[in-house]
């Protein structure tokens, strides 16, 4: 009997041990916080993008050297959401996260909808770590006035702008030179070039996935109606998607769909999108919407002889009209539930220091700080000079809303492009659907 009791006891203990694991973790964490007065632990989580992983290790090393009181725990991963989300659900938040909006898993968007981000407006008035200049004086003007950084449109900043990149149409400059074709400056010239290229068996257009249409669409909205129109569209104003300006945008994309390379839709998913990018390298298509990271992403891919990256702003609606190259940037944010928010804010100032910016720039990641474009070299010098050559910069994105079940502007506005190219939907139906989604999102505006 005694033996059996003993066995029963041990089994119960084992089961309890299993359940107790989570409690142990919590204890360890609370210890960390207690010791924070002497030695701080700062948990930094960053997305491993086309710029690679090393720059983060280097920046963190440099920060630890500059600030010996801080011990940084770094998490860098290509699927960052999947790595940090389970811990976040269990209450263990990273202190500061580099992860931009517009990704499939939409983690920052969810945090915005849930009001779960820390207000970091005060960081702008702080001095850059180790320097005398304030953060706001170092940043290029405009970056903290967008719906991306101030999602609630209340003058408060919740997301700090990081690594910016002009987006536009990428092409093989070598091919255009060889054929004697001019880079089109208006959409009419674009269609004319499309017909010329078609005669030689080259498609005018391709796109990696429909997700790349965000910057493309935003630029078109700017070109067609200016900043005021753009902001109305981003704030879901009633009837805005049915105005003549919006109709023009839909018509241009509808016409472009007819000039799109025929295998684009089949490969337009997260797994095969590089096959679409390869079309440019192989001279099978002329233009694709993309960002400067594509150069790094395709650096090992085979290419046609004489290949040379070129990038242009979107063609203007009419001769002499504005041309836009949308500025895409990533963001860094602090969850409200983070344990070491002060440490996180200090680190946020450090990422704009000359030291950090130089480390990032070495990997091709360009911080939005004044005077950085004069320090660029190689392909980047060409890309970032697009604004010096007359293109205007657009920034921002759709205003934040509460979650509306089963309704997604990205799916309706960008995802439908696949159906337009394959002919499964008409441009008219598409336009109607976008206006309907806009109607559904308006009441949910934050």
């Amino acid at each position, binding site marked *: 009997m005694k033996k059996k009791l003993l066995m029963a006891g041990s089994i119960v203990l084992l089961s309890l041990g299993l359940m107790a694991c989570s409690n142990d973790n919590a204890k360890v964490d609370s210890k960390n916080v207690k010791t924070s007065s002497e030695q701080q632990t700062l948990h930094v989580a960053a997305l491993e993008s086309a710029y690679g992983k090393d720059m983060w290790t280097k920046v963190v090393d440099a920060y630890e050297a500059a600030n010996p009181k801080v011990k940084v725990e770094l998490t860098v991963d290509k699927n960052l959401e999947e790595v940090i989300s389970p811990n976040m659900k269990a209450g263990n938040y990273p202190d500061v996260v580099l992860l931009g909006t517009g990704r499939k898993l939409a983690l920052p968007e969810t945090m915005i*909808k*849930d*009001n779960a981000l820390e207000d970091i407006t005060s960081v702008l008035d702080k001095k850059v770590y180790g320097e005398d200049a304030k953060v706001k004086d170092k940043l290029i003007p405009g970056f903290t006035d967008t719906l991306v950084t101030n999602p609630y449109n209340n003058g408060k900043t919740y997301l700090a702008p990081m690594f910016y990149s002009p987006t536009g149409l990428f092409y093989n400059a070598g091919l255009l030179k060889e054929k004697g074709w001019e880079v089109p400056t208006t959409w009419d010239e674009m269609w004319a070039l499309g017909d010329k290229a078609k005669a030689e068996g080259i498609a005018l257009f391709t796109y990696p996935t429909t997700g790349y249409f965000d910057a493309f669409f935003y630029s078109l909205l700017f070109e067609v109606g200016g900043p005021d129109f753009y902001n109305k569209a981003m704030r879901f104003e009633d009837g805005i998607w049915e105005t003549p300006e919006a109709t023009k945008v839909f018509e241009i994309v509808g016409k472009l769909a007819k000039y799109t390379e025929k295998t684009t839709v089949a490969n337009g998913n997260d797994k095969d999108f590089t096959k679409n990018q390869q079309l440019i390298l192989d001279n099978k298509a002329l233009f694709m919407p993309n960002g400067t990271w594509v150069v790094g992403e395709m650096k090992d891919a085979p290419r046609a002889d004489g290949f040379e990256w070129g990038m242009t702003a979107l063609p203007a609606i009419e001769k002499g009209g504005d041309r836009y190259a949308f500025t895409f940037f990533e963001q860094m944010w602090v969850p409200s539930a983070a344990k070491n928010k002060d440490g996180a804010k200090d680190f946020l100032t450090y990422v704009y220091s000359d030291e950090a910016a130089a480390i990032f720039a070495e990997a091709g990641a360009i911080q939005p700080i004044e005077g950085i474009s004069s320090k660029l070299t190689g392909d980047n010098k060409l890309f970032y000079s697009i604004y010096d050559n007359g293109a205007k910069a657009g920034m921002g994105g759709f205003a934040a809303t509460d979650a509306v079940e089963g309704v997604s502007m990205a799916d309706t506005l960008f995802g439908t492009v696949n159906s337009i190219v394959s002919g499964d939907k008409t441009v008219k139906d598409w336009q109607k659907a976008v206006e309907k989604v806009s109607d559904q999102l308006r009441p949910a505006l934050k």
Partner: protein
Amino acid sequence: MNKKKERRFFIFVCTAPALILLSLFILVPTVEVFRMSLYKWGGFSNNQVFVGLENFRKLWNDLNFFRSLQNSILLIVVVTLFTMVLSVLFATLLSREKLKGNNFFRIIFYIPNILSIVVIAGIFSAVYDPSTGLLNNLLAVFKLESLQKMWLGDQKIAIYSIGGALVWQAVGYYMVMYMSSMASIPESFYEASSLEGAGRITQFFSITLPLIWNNIRTTLTFFIISTINLSFLLVQAMTGGGPDGSTEVFLSYMYKQAYTNSSYGYGMAIGVVIFLFSFALSAIISQVTKREVLEY
């Protein structure tokens, strides 16, 4: 009396760990799914709002959900039908006919089953590639250019392309299952029937099929569950639900709503519908296919 008590205590102690684990990791989460389906919640904050059956009302009007439901049902029907016919056929061939390289084929058919679904997605992306893919180039070799398709780009056939990959990976597994029950059918039945003049096809329908019927019934439930699960994985890895939602299945739609549209509660409502749907379907199929079990 004391002995009886002791015995009961012993049984309790032996089953306790399993029961604790079962309730902790299966019952509690399932109940939690049902509870969360009544809330509006983004997934992270403490801001959970009770909305009653509102999520289900929205679901009823969500055309995208119905499209994903349609795709799932289509896959369950098509994949089950093709996989079952092919695997019964191969199982019969390999266990009844004296073929050369019997064991070799058995291994070849089974290999897809040990591959991870991501590898299968990679293989089939290569097979379906419009310009360099195996399928379109094979059609070109046989001068069948008119049949060449954008296998993953054409919205009308993309879901069938996913189905093709699912059938390919499942055939071997079910074939082995059917072979094992065919092996237990006594050889004398076949000998007796052939003396009475029964051909191979009569033998198959009068002896083999009735005697493995119970096994087929069991596998039907497996077909439903595995098609629902694997179609999600394959869609995630291959098309992401595209082009324009045409290959979305209900689990991928649930994932999309719960994790990318910040509507966790809505996602759980979809989860509840899937849960009830798969239970009901399995029960119906099990009832419909009920036959007297033949003993031998």
